[in-house]
């Protein structure tokens, strides 16, 4: 059984001591004492957390509480922010990804990311999906073709685009573009997929498609998704983490968070009585 669901967690401080992040082999991601600063501003104030393989974990919380910052720690995307500084350990499959020796490019092949606004490259649909393979130096045409088709099928886009793979990715609708971005991420076969509000720019039908997709994908991937949509979090995630002002307030099975949260702030937030 997971430690995090043993007991309702009353305070983050208890969480710190209960979780021994370094030992759990079943944990895909283990965060230990993570703190983040942008300049003098402390955006993440010491978070411990573990995420199990093949689950969907939702990050919720009010705007500016640090969800994106925390999520982007997992593929080191914050590294590009000049004022960014962090402390603590983030282990993926047991390896601290902030160690000096870590090859960030290799890490990102393992930890894919889907962004808030669909951002396909201004290239053909095929080239978009093949991009990750090509930058790895893969030349085998048949291999690439197969992977592209597989990824597009997994992203439930194949039937819609199979006849015009040469068309620009930008010519697709917003929802299709986002599925293209998911396919692009899947093509390199990462084990973790990070999604930062992947449906916030999409219509309800496209959103439903992507939610369905996430449900399918968790069989093979570990998914962490940031969302402002409470229904979405409750529909698709197995675990939900509630953040507030740079702290992890409550983290539990989604069912528990949404039916019987143990902390008042969480309850206020999910019922919309926040702030």
């Amino acid at each position, binding site marked *: 059984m997971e430690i995090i669901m043993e007991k309702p967690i009353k305070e983050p401080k208890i969480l710190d001591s209960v979780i021994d992040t370094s030992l759990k082999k079943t944990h895909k991601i283990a965060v230990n004492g993570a703190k983040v600063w942008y300049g003098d501003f402390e955006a993440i104030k010491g978070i411990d957390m573990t995420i199990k393989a093949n689950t969907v974990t939702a990050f919720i919380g009010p705007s500016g509480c640090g969800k994106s910052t925390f999520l982007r720690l997992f*593929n080191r*995307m914050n590294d*590009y922010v000049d004022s960014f500084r962090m402390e603590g350990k983030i282990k993926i499959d047991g390896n601290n990804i902030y160690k000096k020796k870590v090859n960030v*490019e*290799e*890490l*990102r*092949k393992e930890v*894919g*990311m889907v*962004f808030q*606004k669909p*951002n*396909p*490259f*201004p*290239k053909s649909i095929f080239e978009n999906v093949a*991009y*990750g393979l*090509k*930058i*790895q130096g893969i030349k085998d045409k048949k291999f690439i073709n197969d992977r592209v088709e597989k990824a597009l099928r997994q992203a439930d886009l194949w039937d819609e685009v199979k006849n015009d793979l040469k068309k620009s990715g*930008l010519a697709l609708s917003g929802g299709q573009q986002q599925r293209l*971005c998911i396919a*692009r*991420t899947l093509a*390199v076969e990462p084990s973790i997929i990070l999604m930062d509000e992947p449906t916030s720019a999409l219509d309800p039908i496209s959103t439903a498609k992507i939610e369905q997709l996430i449900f399918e994908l968790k069989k093979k991937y570990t998914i962490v998704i940031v969302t402002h949509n409470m229904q979405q979090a409750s529909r698709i995630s197995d675990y939900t983490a509630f953040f507030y002002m740079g702290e992890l307030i409550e983290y539990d099975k989604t069912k528990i968070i949404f039916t019987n949260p143990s902390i008042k702030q969480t309850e206020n937030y999910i019922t919309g009585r926040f702030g």
Partner: protein
Amino acid sequence: MRKIKELIIEKSLLSSALVTIAVTLGIILVLAIEAFRFFSEVSIFDFFTDTQWTPLFTEKHFGILPLLSGTLLTSFIAIAFALPIGLSISIYLSEYAPKAFRKSVKPLLELLAAVPTVVYGFFALVVVTPFLQEIIPNLSGFNSLSAGIVMGIMIIPYISSLSEDALHAVPDSLREASFGMGSTKFQTAFKVIVPAASSGIIVSIILAISRAIGETMIVAIAAGQQPRLTLDPTVPIETITAYIVQVSLGDVQHGSLEYRTIFAAGITLFVFTFLLNTLSYRIRKKFQEKYE
């Protein structure tokens, strides 16, 4: 009262626009009329096939090819010199350099385009040519090589600055996407950002070519005044622009056939730069559609 004021402003803006158009049309009209008169005496076929240009000699030939080759040769050298440097600078500034560095270096580079071309011409003649003569002993005092190189220096900012604008305009979301896929900085720059900005980069190159073709002072001073159909960069040549200057400043009688050659040469030049500008306009329009 306010209405009248607005009306006056509107009308004066409109009239300055109309004056500009009228002047442009007037120039084209004069060019066309004089060129038409020229071609009533010299056949267009000879103009484009004769390999000699000697309108000022007793034995007259009116073949534009030597002037054209001079223009294209110096422009080609200029672009060959400016393109790799300009593009490297733009990619470095946009994708690698710290923001503060970019902000201070870009205006400095643009200064290159603000140096009077007569200074460049002299620089080519009295600095670059003697220097190159150390390496290439049989280089003539007037030649297309040093004129082309110095013209290249002059047009570097056209390429670097406009390309940098195009690269910089590529949304950061594409950089994030590329880094997120595990690309290195180099892969991101060359496989995502440069292709995404390609139309803007091409436009910058076309404008630079256009500028090189129309450049007068540098070639008039440093490349010589000897119309010659050649691809040899070490010998004196003459460009279309340099020829026009030569005749305009000379004592050729107005209204004579010799005088009209400058209009024939001028309209050839005009057609070239017009085509290039149209091309860049088209590309720019297509580029806009892509991001809308």
